[in-house]
């Protein structure tokens, strides 16, 4: 059990980083202690911003000796409160943003070594400068950091083609919970020499150790991307459309395939300046997809889809700027929902084939539970991942609505689990889903996880109170 730090420990920690690397000034701390939707607010006696891996290791050693809890933090864009220290104010906050170099790029090996504090967009940029692609892409890419992305095993819009964060890593450098440095920065695509330890740290939400650097996989840059915005009559048609897109565009031609409900689009058009409804036809569902195919192929895809009755209307972006405008619609949904009042969010996944049944059943159950509730489902439908969100009934008191969060999620999650799905597809567990996630794991699985935590972090100092264990 971690303990509150005494003054001597805090002083020792400050010495490690020197004045440039620590703060206890409330104004400096404030932005690090609240998550962007203000749902989680925390306290800490000390914010540390170490300058290199050696400093991180020393910090962890001092904390381990004093049994003081550590919360690692990257860009603070996580959505489940995992990067915010608890209200007890006993944990020190270790922010990695100063450890932010791209150490090297190896274009022939298609790898790049980035330090944990590198902002995702900077990694994408570094890859682009070598005419390569780092495919992880999500709306927070201008702020989130590689360490946070890997620790959250972030997904994003290109999972369909390239997998989650964990599929994009070949090696890690980690400071263990006991303050040792593990140099696992191997750039190998084949390496069967024991347990794959890096995969345990990835997605661990900082509960096993601190990631300080990673070998990331690079890919050839896309020469041509066609972006289409398509009106689709039903979730069934969405799945058929995905099959058709794969068939027409050939192996790996579908880069992204996102589903947007009519109400989600309405909210964006209503609340986000400069956004317009791209189609003349109103439709209950829309798909926004990126295909890495020639324009003629994209046109064939759309005409065939029309012939098969899978789509009612469509538009094709003619330039990068138009494509960006279409993607902005998708990326503005959360913001638009925020302006519409209270929002209850679920980040769930089911096997792709179950999407239509899941949507139908879950919508029926929730609208029965909260009459007038306004569903805003959207998301990475190609991965079976939906952000199954609900805006409050018009005119209802926001707090009264949000008080029903658990009740709504319980109903949604029961249906998710009945379909063999997951109650947290890409945002992780943090504090938000701790109880709920445990409820659906078997005793065997929980026990194995508990033993891993015990083995990696015997003193329980790494991000205490977060994650499933």
């Amino acid at each position: 059990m971690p303990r509150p730090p005494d003054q001597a420990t805090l002083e020792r920690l400050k010495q490690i980083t020197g004045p440039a690397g620590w703060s206890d000034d409330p104004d400096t701390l404030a932005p690090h202690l609240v998550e962007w939707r203000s749902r989680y607010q925390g306290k800490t006696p000390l914010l540390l911003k170490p300058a290199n891996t050696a400093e991180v290791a020393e910090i962890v050693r001092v904390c381990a000796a004093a049994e003081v809890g550590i919360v690692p933090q990257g860009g603070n864009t996580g959505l489940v409160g995992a990067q915010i220290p608890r209200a007890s104010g006993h944990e020190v906050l270790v922010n990695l943003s100063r450890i932010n170099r791209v150490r090297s790029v190896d274009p022939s090996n298609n790898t790049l070594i980035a330090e944990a504090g590198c902002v995702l967009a900077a990694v994408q940029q570094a890859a682009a400068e070598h005419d390569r692609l780092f495919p992880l892409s999500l709306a927070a890419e201008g702020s989130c950091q590689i360490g946070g992305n890997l620790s959250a095993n972030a997904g994003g819009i290109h999972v369909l083609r390239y997998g989650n964060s964990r599929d994009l890593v070949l090696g890690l450098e980690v400071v263990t919970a006991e303050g040792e440095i593990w140099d696992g920065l191997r750039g190998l695509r084949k390496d069967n020499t024991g347990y794959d330890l890096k995969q345990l740290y990835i997605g661990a939400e900082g509960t096993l150790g601190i990631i300080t650097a990673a070998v990331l996989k690079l890919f050839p840059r896309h020469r041509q991307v066609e972006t289409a915005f398509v009106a689709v009559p039903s979730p069934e048609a969405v799945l058929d459309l995905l099959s058709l897109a794969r068939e027409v565009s050939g192996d790996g031609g579908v880069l992204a395939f996102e589903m947007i409900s009519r109400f989600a689009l309405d909210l964006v058009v209503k609340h986000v300046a400069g956004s317009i409804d791209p189609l003349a036809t109103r439709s209950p569902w829309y798909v926004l997809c990126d295909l890495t195919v020639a324009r003629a192929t994209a046109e064939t895809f759309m005409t065939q889809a029309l012939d098969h009755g899978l789509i009612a209307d469509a538009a094709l972006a003619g330039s990068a700027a138009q494509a960006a405008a279409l993607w902005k619609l998708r990326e503005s949904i959360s913001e638009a929902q925020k302006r519409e009042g209270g929002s209850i969010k679920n980040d769930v996944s089911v096997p792709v084939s179950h999407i239509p049944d899941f949507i139908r059943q879950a919508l029926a159950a929730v609208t029965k539970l909260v009459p007038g509730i306004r569903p805003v489902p959207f998301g990475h439908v190609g991965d079976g991942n939906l952000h199954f969100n609900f805006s409050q009934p018009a005119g209802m008191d926001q707090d009264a609505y949000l008080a029903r969060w658990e009740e709504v999620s319980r109903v949604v999650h029961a249906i998710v689990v009945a379909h063999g799905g997951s109650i947290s597809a890409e945002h992780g567990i943090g504090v938000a889903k701790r109880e709920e996630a445990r409820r659906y794991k078997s005793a065997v699985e929980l026990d194995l996880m508990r033993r891993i935590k015990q083995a990696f972090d015997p003193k329980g100092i790494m991000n205490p109170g977060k994650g499933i264990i």
Partner: protein
Amino acid sequence: MKILVPCKRVPNPDLKLKVANGSVDLAGTTWQVNPFDEYAVEAALRLTEKGKGGERVGEVVVVSIGPKDTSAQLKQLLAMGANRAILVAGDDSALDSDLVARILRAVVAAEKPDLVITGKQAVDGDDNQVGQILAASLGWPQATFLASILLAADGKSATVTREVDAGVEERRVRLPAIMTVDLRIIGKKAVRNEALAPATAEWEDTQRLASLKGIMAAKKKELREITVESLGVAGGILVKTLRHEAPPARKAGVKVASVEELVAKLHNEAKVI
């Protein structure tokens, strides 16, 4: 009303250009319509329709000078709604603003449009010359950098505005004329034909996308490929590009500790104050 819209294809402005051995390597780039030309097409479409989504009256002809695969960009403009397209075979390296204007003058002579609308400049070379040279050589009035166009009901003149340093300038131009447009031309109420659309008419605050219906219709529209020779225009350019160089890399900045130090550096080193 027949409107001719000259359009250029440009490399994707979001891609970082590679400059090597004195020239820009465009091998890996993707191409798109110059944004200002796309706005010109949008303006032309609005001038020939009865309000947003309304019936189209009149003809919009797009013309480009470029290699064969420029047809992809022209097809996109046809899908947006242009009626016909003309592709004059040519290669950027053998063109300058003067030759482009002379070719366009020949196209104007053949097509006899009531109005020519084009972008104020292409975002690759940023030359900002073609519209002006074309107007001068035809002896037509020119109205450049337009933020709005109101076409009179009789189709004989237009009231236009252009943003200048001191504010907004309003002018009336006789038709036929050459107009070049700036980015505000795609504003909701920036463009209207009094003969077709009521004063209340409003469009979206952007250029239209190629809709599926438009893409299918475009397959049946005429895209005529011709040569410079067939227009009776002699080649030869006045401006020759000798070499391209990437701008020097920006030097790393320094952090200053105080306002005093900043002022001292601006004064002693940068010598700007």
